[in-house]
C-alpha cells in the first residue's frame, strides 16, 4: 500500500516536472483573466482569431524537431521570404485569394534557397543547431535589409509609390496589405452569436496538420526520426543523414513562409523590418508553452501553446493596468514571460538530457558488472 502511494507520488511529481511550463502558464492565466475584466465572448473571439493567425507558423517548427535539430530559429528566413512575396503582390496590384496564392508561389523558391543555405550551415554545426540558427536569423536579417531597403526600386524593379520610400528606392517601414486583408478569414463566413469564425483559415490549418501526420509515416519522416535518435546509427543503416536534415530545414522554411503570409493577411499591414524578427521568438515560445520540448513536439502542443501563450499576451496589459495602474508593466511582463519560458524549457531539456546520459552510463556499467 505504502509502496503504491510512493509510486503514485513519484508519478505525480514526474507529471508536474514534465509539464512544468504549461502548468505555470495555466496558473498565471487563471490569475490574469479575471483581473483583466474581459468578457467571455471577447476572449473567445480574440483566441479564435489568434489561433487562426499563428498556428500555421508554429506548426512549421515541428519538422526540424522531428529530425532532432531543435527549435528552428531559422524559420525567420521563411518569414522573410513570405514578406518578399507580399511586397511583390502589392507591387503588382493583385487582389484577394489569387494574391495570397501568388505570394505563396513567389515565396517558395526564395524559401527553398534560404532553407537550403541554412541547412548547409547547420550541418556544419551539429550539436549547436539552435544557437547557430539563431545567429543565422540575425545575419540574414542584415541581408534582407540590404535587399529590401537598398535594392528594391533601384536594382529590383518596384514602381508602386505607395510601398516605395519617397527617396525612390527601398520599401516603406509599414506596407498596407489592404488587398489581401482577411481574405482567407472571410472566405467562408460563419457567425455564432457575436463571434466570427474564420472557417477557411482553420481548414487550411487542418490540412497542414494532416500533412504533418501523414509526413511522419512516410519514409522520409521515419528517416528523420531515426536521425534524431542517433545520427551514427542512422548513417550506418544507410540513411543520408545530412540530406535528411537539410530537407527538414527546407520544409520548415517553406511552411514558415506560407505561415507568415497567412499571419500578415490577417493583420492587414506589414511592419517591413520588424515583423519577421519577432515572429521566431513568439512562435517558439508558444510551442514550448504548449508543453513541447526541444526534442519532442506534437500538434497538440501547438494548439495548447498558442491558446495559452496568446491568452496571456492578450490579457496581461489590461491586467497590469487594473492591478498597478500601468499597462506598460503588463507589456513588459508578457515579454519577460515569453523569454522566461524559453529559458526554463531549454534548461529543463538540457538537464534531462544529461540525466539520461548519466543513467545510460550507469546501466551500461551495471550490465558489464553482471557479466
Amino acid at each position, binding site marked *: 500500500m505504502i509502496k503504491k502511494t510512493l509510486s503514485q507520488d513519484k508519478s505525480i511529481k514526474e507529471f508536474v516536472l514534465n509539464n512544468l511550463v504549461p502548468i505555470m502558464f495555466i496558473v498565471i492565466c487563471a490569475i490574469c483573466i479575471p483581473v483583466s475584466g474581459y468578457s467571455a465572448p471577447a476572449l473567445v473571439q480574440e483566441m479564435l482569431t489568434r489561433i487562426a493567425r499563428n498556428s500555421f507558423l508554429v506548426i512549421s517548427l515541428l519538422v526540424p524537431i522531428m529530425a532532432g535539430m531543435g527549435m528552428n530559429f531559422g524559420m525567420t528566413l521563411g518569414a522573410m521570404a513570405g514578406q518578399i512575396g507580399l511586397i511583390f503582390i502589392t507591387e503588382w496590384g493583385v487582389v484577394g485569394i489569387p494574391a495570397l496564392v501568388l505570394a505563396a508561389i513567389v515565396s517558395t523558391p526564395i524559401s527553398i534557397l534560404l532553407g537550403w543555405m541554412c541547412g548547409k550551415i547547420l550541418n556544419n554545426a551539429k550539436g549547436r543547431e539552435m544557437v547557430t540558427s539563431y545567429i543565422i536569423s540575425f545575419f540574414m536579417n*542584415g541581408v534582407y535589409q540590404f535587399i529590401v531597403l537598398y535594392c528594391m526600386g533601384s536594382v529590383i524593379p518596384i514602381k508602386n509609390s505607395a510601398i516605395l520610400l519617397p527617396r525612390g528606392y527601398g520599401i516603406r517601414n509599414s506596407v498596407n496589405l489592404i488587398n489581401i486583408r482577411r481574405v482567407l478569414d472571410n472566405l467562408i463566413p460563419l457567425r455564432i452569436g457575436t463571434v466570427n469564425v474564420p472557417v477557411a483559415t482553420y481548414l487550411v490549418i487542418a490540412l497542414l496538420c494532416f500533412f504533418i501526420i501523414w509526413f511522419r509515416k512516410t519514409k522520409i519522416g521515419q528517416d528523420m526520426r531515426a536521425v534524431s535518435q542517433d545520427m551514427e546509427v542512422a548513417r550506418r543503416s544507410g540513411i543520408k543523414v545530412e540530406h535528411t536534415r537539410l530537407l527538414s530545414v527546407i520544409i520548415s522554411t517553406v511552411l514558415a513562409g506560407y505561415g507568415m503570409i497567412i499571419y500578415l493577411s490577417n493583420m492587414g499591414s506589414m511592419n517591413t523590418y520588424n515583423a519577421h524578427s519577432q515572429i521566431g521568438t513568439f512562435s517558439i515560445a508558444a510551442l514550448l508553452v504548449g508543453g513541447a520540448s526541444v526534442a519532442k513536439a506534437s500538434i497538440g502542443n501547438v494548439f495548447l501553446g498558442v491558446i495559452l501563450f496568446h491568452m496571456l499576451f492578450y490579457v496581461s496589459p489590461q491586467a497590469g493596468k487594473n492591478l498597478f495602474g500601468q499597462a506598460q508593466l503588463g507589456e513588459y511582463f508578457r515579454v519577460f514571460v515569453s523569454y522566461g519560458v524559453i529559458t526554463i524549457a531549454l534548461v529543463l531539456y538540457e538537464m534531462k538530457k544529461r540525466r539520461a546520459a548519466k543513467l545510460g552510463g550507469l546501466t551500461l556499467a551495471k550490465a558489464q558488472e553482471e557479466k
Partner: protein
Amino acid sequence: MNKMQRFIKEFGWPRLIIAAFLLSLVVIAPFAGVNIGTSLTDTIMRFSMNGVMVLAMVPMIHSGCGLNFGLPLGIIAGLLGGTLAMQFGFTGKLSFLMAIVLCTPFALLFGWAYGKLLNRVKGGEMMIATYVGFASVSFMCMMWLLLPYSNPQMVWGYGGSGLRTTISTEGYYYHVLSDFLNIKIGHLSIPTGSLLFFALLAFLMWAFLHTKKGTAMTAVGSNPIYARASGIKIDSIRTLSVIMSTWLGAVGILVYEQAFGFIQLYNGPFYMALPAVSAILIGGASVNKASITNVIVGTFLFQGIVTMTPSVMNSIIHTDMSEVIRIIVSNGMILYALTRKTEETR
C-alpha cells in the same frame, strides 16, 4: 605559396575579408573627404568605451563555457550599481567609484547563480546564456518601473516614480575617465584615462590567467577530462569564470556610460552582447580559445569598421548603409566561429 595558403587558413577567410574591408575604407577615406584624424579619434574613443565588455568574454571562453551571450546579465548588475550610486547622492569622480563598488555584490550574486545554472546545462550553454540575458533584461524592465528610486534626475517627471529610459550622467560620472589626462593633438583626442583603466583590467586578466587558478581555468576549457584527472574542481572553476565575466560586464557598461554620457535602461541592454562577441571573434578568438591580444585587435577592428563605414559610405554613395554592413559583418563572424569548431573536433 603553400605557406600563404596555410596562413590564410589559420587566419580565416572572414577575418581576412574584414581586415581588407577596413584597409580599403582607410585608403578611400581621404579621397572621400573624410578626416582621418576625427575617424581615428572616434575609433579610439569607441575602443575605450567597449574594450572592457569585450574583455568580459575572455574568462568564460577560457573555462569552456563558450561565448558569453548572457552579457546583459552583467550589464544589469552594472546598471544597478550606476543608478544606485546616483540615487545615494554621490557626485563627480566618487560616483564612478561607488558605482563600481555598488555593482560588485550584484555582479557576484548574479554571476554565481548564472554559473550554477550553466554548470547544469553543459553543452548547451550558449543558447541558454542568450535567453538568460533576455529574460533578465525583460525582468528588469518591470523592476525599473517598480523600484523605489526617487532622485528627480532619474525618475519620470510627471508620475514621480519609475526610472526614465535614458538618464544623463552629467554631474555624476560623465567623462570621469575620458577626461582624465586627455591628450589633444590637432583633430586627435585620446581618452587616456579610459585607455589606462582598460589596460589595468586587461593586465589583471592577463596576470590572473598566469596564476595557478588561471591555468586551471584554461585546462578546464581545453581538456576537461585531463583537468578532472589532475584534481581540478571543474564546476567551481567554471562558476568563478562566469562570476568574473559578469563582473567585467558590469564594470564594462559603467565605462561605456561614463564616455557615452547616458545610462540606457529598459530595452537598452538587449542586444549588447552581440557586438562584444563578434569583436573578440574578429580579433582571432574562437569558441574555446581567446587571449588579451584578441580582445585588443578585435575591438579596434570592429570599432574601426563601425566608425569608418558610415562616414566613408555617406560621402561616396550618399546613403547610410552602415547599419546593414554592421549586422552582416558582426553576425557573419559569429556564424563562422560557430561552424568552425565542429570541423576541428571532427
